[in-house]
């Protein structure tokens, strides 16, 4: 039994080995590559020819940069012809092929070379906005491609052109790794830079890179007002000088400038504006009492201005207060301005009412109209009795103690 198995095994091994050897021989003897050419220009028709002495049609495995496939041959006069499909022959790079006839099959490679022809130039430029001054730069990257969307050969000449103010420049760069690139540096001036490229007669479209001014340097501020009275009505305008960077370029419109005002009491008021043509405006209403302001402006974290001081003169020297209708109607006025004209409507008057023990009961705030303000104390709120009154306006204060309401 044991003997029998061994016997069958040995016989079968012998037969198997004979079979394998026989097949190998066929490959070596039977099929031969006839095509000598191994390099082709992209897009050309490629036919691989093999000589064979037998009417068989083995498949040809074929693989390029993008994928692989199997190709069936046509058989004619002991010759196998494999037409490489256009999908493969129109892309550059290496093609490897393998004729699947037996285990030890024929294999080889073809090289598809790019052609020096440009149909389109893909250009990429970035960043699209750079800073003036000569340190910042943008980069132009171009991928010239032929009509079959293949990159052009290495070391193809590309002209990188750019125009800036009066300068027009064309620089030669060469493709490598399918691309060509050029770093373009800014100049001292700000403005718009136009960039394009040209390769083998093909031209790219035009690109714009904005060279924006660098950060502003310190600046000065000024003030504009119609008069210097603290009337609480007119507007004071703050203006910056023209904000410029260190290369004398006017900063971008919209640069944010904050004005900080410190008044006599040390309170800080803030107003702000953005630049247009380098100048930022900002407005604030006059105070309604005598005050001294110190003003300083900042482009936050970047630049600052000088400090200026302005004074506001008191406009209301004094005002009258009259009590009527059981002292329940308090009329303040006339309030007169610097030319004895009635103060413009809207001056704030504050009336504070205390009881006999000097506890604050109520505060009324009203604004003037035609130079007067009147307060009407209703009897259901303020019962008949003794009250103290305190009236404040335009930095002045008048106190009326122990007034009886009834």
């Amino acid at each position: 039994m044991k003997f029998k198995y061994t016997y069958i095994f040995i016989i079968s091994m012998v037969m198997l080995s004979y079979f394998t050897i026989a097949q190998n021989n066929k490959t070596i003897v039977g099929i031969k590559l006839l095509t000598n050419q191994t390099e082709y220009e992209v897009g050309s028709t490629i036919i691989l020819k093999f000589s064979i002495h037998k009417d068989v049609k083995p498949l040809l495995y074929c693989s390029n940069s993008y994928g692989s496939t199997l190709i069936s041959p046509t058989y004619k006069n002991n010759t196998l012809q494999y037409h490489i499909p256009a999908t493969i022959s129109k892309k550059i790079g290496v093609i490897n092929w393998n004729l699947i006839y037996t285990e030890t099959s024929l294999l080889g490679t073809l090289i598809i070379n790019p052609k020096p022809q440009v149909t389109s130039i893909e250009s990429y430029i970035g960043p699209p906005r750079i800073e003036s001054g000569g340190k910042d730069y943008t980069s132009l990257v171009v991928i010239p491609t032929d009509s079959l969307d293949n990159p052009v050969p290495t070391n193809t000449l590309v002209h990188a052109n750019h125009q800036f103010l009066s300068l027009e420049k064309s620089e030669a760069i060469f493709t490598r790794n399918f691309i060509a690139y050029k770093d373009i540096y800014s100049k001292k001036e700000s403005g718009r830079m136009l960039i394009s490229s040209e390769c083998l007669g093909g031209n790219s479209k035009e690109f714009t890179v904005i060279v924006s001014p660098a950060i502003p340097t310190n600046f000065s501020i000024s003030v504009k007002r119609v008069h210097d009275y603290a009337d609480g009505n007119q507007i004071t305008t703050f203006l910056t000088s023209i904000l410029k960077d260190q290369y004398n370029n006017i900063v971008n419109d919209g640069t944010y400038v904050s004005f900080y005002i410190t008044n006599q009491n040390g309170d800080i008021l803030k107003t702000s504006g953005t630049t247009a043509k380098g100048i930022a405006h900002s407005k604030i209403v006059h105070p309604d009492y005598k005050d001294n302001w110190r003003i300083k402006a900042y482009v936050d974290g970047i630049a600052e201005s000088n400090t200026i001081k302005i004074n506001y003169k008191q406009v209301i020297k004094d005002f009258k207060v009259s009590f009527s209708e059981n002292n329940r109607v308090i009329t303040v006025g006339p309030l007169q301005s610097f030319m004895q004209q009635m103060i413009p409507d809207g001056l704030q008057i504050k009336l504070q009412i205390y009881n006999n023990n000097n506890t604050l009961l109520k505060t009324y705030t009203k604004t003037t109209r035609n130079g007067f303000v009147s307060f009407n104390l209703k009897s259901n709120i303020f019962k008949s009795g003794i009250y103290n009154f305190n009236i404040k306006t335009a930095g002045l204060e008048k106190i009326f103690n122990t007034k009886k309401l009834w």
Partner: protein
Amino acid sequence: MVNLNRNILHTILIASYIVIIALIVYGVSALFSYLNTGADRSKMLHTEIKKIEQYLPKLIWSPLNNEGRLMDNENLTNLQNDYLDAWYVKQVAYKTNKVAGIKDYYTESARKNLYNFIDLNKAEDITIESTTLNHNPTLEFFSLDGKLAVITDKNVVEYKRVFKAEEFILKTTESSTYKIVFLLEDGFWRIRHIVKQDSQPFIAENQKIKTDNLTIKGINYYPQATPWDMFGKKFSKDIISKDFKIIKDAGLNSIRIFVQYADFGKANVNPKKLKKLKQTLDAAEENNLKVVVTLFDFYGDYSVLNWTLNQRHAEKIVNTFKNHKALLAWDIKNEPNLDFESRGKENVIAWLDKMIDLVKSVDNKHAVTIGWSNIESATILKDKVDIVSFHYYEDLEQFDSAIKTLKKEIPNKALVVQEFGLSSYSGLWNPFGNSEDDQAEYYKTIQSIISKNNIEFMSWTLYDFDYIPTEVVGRLPWRKNTQKYFGFIDSNGNKKPSFKYISKE
């Protein structure tokens, strides 16, 4: 009666009213929630975390020395992920001849080339299963605005299986160099140009490990309480150590253990499991035992697209333990020939072939073997393995001649009968089974054949088990029960008569 009917009518009316209202509310809310989906801003730029590992070939970047802008880690990781995904979708596309996913990873002009190939292959009914195993990219250029990159990927090892009309035509392993231009579009690094610069057939250069003075007197080991779950929750180094001492004292010098693929975390190997494996190897070293580590237990997929995941699993384990003193050999897979029928012989063998290459590329000191389930399969890949292992559960009368035949075919490599044994089960499910004395007699006989032929051995197994997982022999009770009684020591810890022949005749 009338009253009752009226009540029933009222109830039905009210109930139907409630149901209708509920349906309307549900409908309106479903419509509302539908209209609210799909407008998530965070999804517009693909910034959400959704990375699942589906394709992990070995990828090593050359030191960064590129032209243009300095590359940072985050951009490089994104580029790498999208590049590998581009390969993955391409392979899926050529396998199925469908275009799904292509447009995310190839620019509008580049994807046309793939579509052309898909049309061509679809018309000819050609499908291609492929994967790439190695990538060695060099970053050539990264544009200043961070939106264009060029890489050269050298020696990309591509494995392909080509089918026509579902018939296998060709397998090929190529090593190619590609140059690729990427554009960053919509948050994806898309391939604009890819050009194969060079390609040749790939042959792995593996170091042969000398196994001349190898003597394996071993045993397949699972702890008694946790068979097929050695590195689970009940793992205990003390138990293992005690067992190893029994094995050593019995005159054996090596053990074979199993690393389960899913249990160890698949492509992302679980460090906790590695720690337990290390403790096991340490215990073996303390007891002067050598260990054959069997990888990929309970794994049976082999599909080409998952190879890269399998390879990362093996790479991690082999790399962790390649310098461990207790290590004897790597067993790539237990009984892979049993998967020939369901997974395709060609496919399984190709998987093993590439896995051997991978293990050897990581560890060039330790021998590699495959645990074939029968002696007839042992000649498969005989030139690639360093030790030829096979299992023998068949008739002992044939054993001697089978070894002699194998020796004729493989005269110069160590042969290991890596599993053998006899169940001493006889009971309800198999009343005419073998007794413990039969088992002892079996071991006596087989040991004499082994020593006469001067081959190495590893028996199955130390213990009788109380529980056999379904994955091992299926659900059938006569199989399960038989599998329980292969041990030299019964489940109460008593040595069976066969123990006398555990290491010698």
